[in-house]
């Protein structure tokens, strides 16, 4: 291989190894679609690195990426988005070339060949003995491959005395009739747009499609269109996956948090993932155990980087405690994103009668106060007035604020004044 080719290959291998950098790059393309090479430079990405990443991404993602020409004449990368361009596929395209150690994968494939019969059972020593050629993988490589295959659930391990016996894991899709496979494909297709992590959903859908293909069944074609699916969530699937595993293992986590400043957060006992379907934001609800505190905290998942599981805490929280804390912290939040139970805000609104049923759906703690012609009065407690604002802005003609803390009300009225000024409406 020529030296130039070797260098290019190395750069491309680095590209598919360093997923953290790629995801940051994609995040900007996805949300803004207007960053030029100079904008990236301000983000710390050099000119040459920008062109490398652009060329590599274009070659992998093909039709999902498009180059737009800005009014300044400069070029920027943007994501193609329409109802038929599923962005998961773009990311899965990227995942499907993720770097690997070829030797490791070849060894894993050879091991899986040994398990072609479902009922066969081997010890690690049996597996090692199968590799009899001169250039065999080392015992350490074989052990790591076995562990990896077991961790991913392709092999299952049963301990008998001091020995571990491995068999191929069962496959719930095996022997499913075509009609159920098709229904399950539709269920997976639907749910991976509803339940995160979508990446797992798409892997499952991919497996079901392969089974259909093996059975020469008709290919599955999607019947769905999705609205309000916030496409950017898939960029956070890796973080979400680690957090879910930490919740299940009841381990504390630490992570980098990209707030106004980037800082490390430690000793968080993760309890729940909260998804606000209106804004598309995902949050981590947890307990801050730092220095023996046990206070509820909320973090945006799209700002979390490199989460790590750090083992069990001295005093883990039980399910009941978590549920109670969760309910107390969020019981007065109708979007589920504020966490200030000690600072409840009480608001009384007059709402038009037609809006009243909708209000009851929105605010589960709304209390009926009284009625006047065409208007109903309701009392609501919320974690913060800010949470109400988007809803109030949307329903200006249908509501009147009767009671709210004075500073918040003044702030709201100021917003309305500014808003009217923008559109040239006399006060």
């Amino acid at each position, binding site marked *: 291989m020529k030296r130039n080719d070797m260098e290019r290959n190395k750069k491309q291998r680095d590209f598919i190894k360093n997923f953290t950098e790629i995801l940051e790059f994609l995040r900007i393309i996805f949300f803004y679609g207007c960053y030029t090479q100079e904008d990236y430079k301000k983000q710390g990405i050099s000119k040459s690195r920008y062109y490398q990443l652009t060329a590599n991404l274009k070659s992998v993602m093909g039709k999902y990426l498009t180059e737009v020409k800005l009014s300044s004449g400069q070029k920027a990368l943007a994501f193609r988005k329409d109802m038929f361009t599923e962005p998961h596929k773009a990311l899965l395209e990227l995942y*499907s070339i993720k770097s690997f150690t070829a030797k490791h994968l070849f060894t894993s494939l050879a091991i899986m060949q040994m398990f072609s019969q479902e009922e066969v059972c081997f010890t690690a020593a049996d597996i090692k003995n199968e590799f009899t050629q001169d250039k065999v993988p080392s015992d350490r490589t074989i052990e790591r491959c076995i562990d990896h295959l077991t961790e991913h659930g392709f092999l299952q391990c049963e301990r008998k005395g001091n020995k571990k016996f491995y068999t191929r894991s069962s496959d719930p899709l095996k022997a499913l009739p075509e009609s159920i496979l098709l229904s399950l494909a539709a269920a997976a297709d639907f749910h*991976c747009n509803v339940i995160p992590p979508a990446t797992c959903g798409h892997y499952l859908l991919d497996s079901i499609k392969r089974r259909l293909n093996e059975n020469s069944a008709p290919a599955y074609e999607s019947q769905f269109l999705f609205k309000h*699916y916030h496409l950017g969530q898939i960029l956070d699937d890796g973080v979400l996956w680690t957090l879910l595993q930490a919740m299940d293992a009841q381990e504390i986590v630490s992570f980098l948090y990209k707030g106004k400043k980037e800082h490390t957060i430690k000793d968080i006992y993760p309890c729940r993932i909260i998804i606000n379907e209106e804004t598309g934001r995902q949050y981590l609800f947890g307990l801050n155990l730092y220095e023996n505190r046990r206070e509820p905290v909320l973090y945006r998942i799209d700002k979390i980087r490199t989460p790590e599981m750090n083992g069990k805490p001295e005093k883990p929280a039980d399910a009941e405690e978590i549920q109670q804390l969760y309910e107390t912290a969020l019981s007065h939040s109708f979007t589920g994103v504020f966490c200030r139970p000690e600072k409840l805000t009480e608001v009384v609104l007059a709402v038009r009668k037609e809006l009243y049923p909708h209000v009851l759906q929105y605010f589960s703690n709304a209390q009926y106060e009284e009625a006047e012609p065409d208007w109903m009065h309701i009392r609501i407690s919320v974690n913060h007035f800010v949470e109400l604002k988007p809803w109030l802005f*949307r329903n200006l003609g249908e509501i*009147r604020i009767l009671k709210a803390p004075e500073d918040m009300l003044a702030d709201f009225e100021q917003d309305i004044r500014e808003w009217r000024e923008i559109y040239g409406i006399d006060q």
Partner: protein
Amino acid sequence: MELINEYKNRYVLALSAVLNRLSNGKTLSKSEIYAEIQEAAGVEKHAAFGADFLEHIRSDTGLLFDFSDNTRVQPVRNGKIQFPISRGEKLYLLMILNSKYIPLFLDQSEIESLRHALEKEKLPDMSRYISVCPMRKGDDITPEFIQKFRLVQKAIRENRYIRYDNQTRQGLLKGMLSRPLRIEFSAADQVFRISMWNPAEGRAVKANLRRMRNVQAAETDTVQPVESIHKILSSRQASEPICLRIRNRRNAPERAALLFSMYDTTMKPLENGDWLMQLRYYEFDKQEIFRHILSFGPSAEVLSPAELIEEVQTHLKQYQHFSVPQGYEKG
């Protein structure tokens, strides 16, 4: 366990397929193997990504291939590589089986049988760690709803028309005839809507599945064929995009980028820190986008089209200033 399952890597899948064909007795030469893997993995698009992998095949000395005769390559082992679904996929399958929407797709006996197949692995139900906060309670998944959903699914699959009554704001529309094209789900509202082609009106229509009554399969030989949904929808794209100035306050640019991420948008920074957002959309999404824009209050200013500016002005004129009726005190 990592989220990314490297056994879904396109090269691994291509290599597994070749090995399985050799195990089934297929004769392949060394060059044919390369060509097959390159083709299956789409290597020609970005050759260097797979170069490392192909190099390993070339130098394989008895791990997977026996290259002693390059015209008739033999597999070292005769056995089909069968990856069961991974633990991550099983966890996800369990989440699906516990979802409130699963009865739309599978019968109870099928759900139980799949649950039973997963039971002995003692997998945790990860969905209990996820709380979804939709804007509305959404559709109730009743037996009647399930029946309608499946009938529509079947009609889409078989390209068939349906007859139904539709309860609209204008009243009950009886005996409608349409061909369902797609089932649309809004996660924010938790509502299912059906996009359909209405031959009488010669246009695409949308109806809430909840409001559709007496849904039945219709005879198909009386109606004309339908254009593809892609074509129908592309004809409904708004000619002029919405232009917004997003003010650099209260995190509005970032909120807007996320909230409108489902649409075809581009954002451009302005010199004063504000952002210019251009949003292309389908006509039928207009009202929804309008409500989203309103939720930003003064942080999002509509610059065009003119009719949308007028709509915001009308909306603002409707606001009745803070007024304190008897019995309430300010603050």
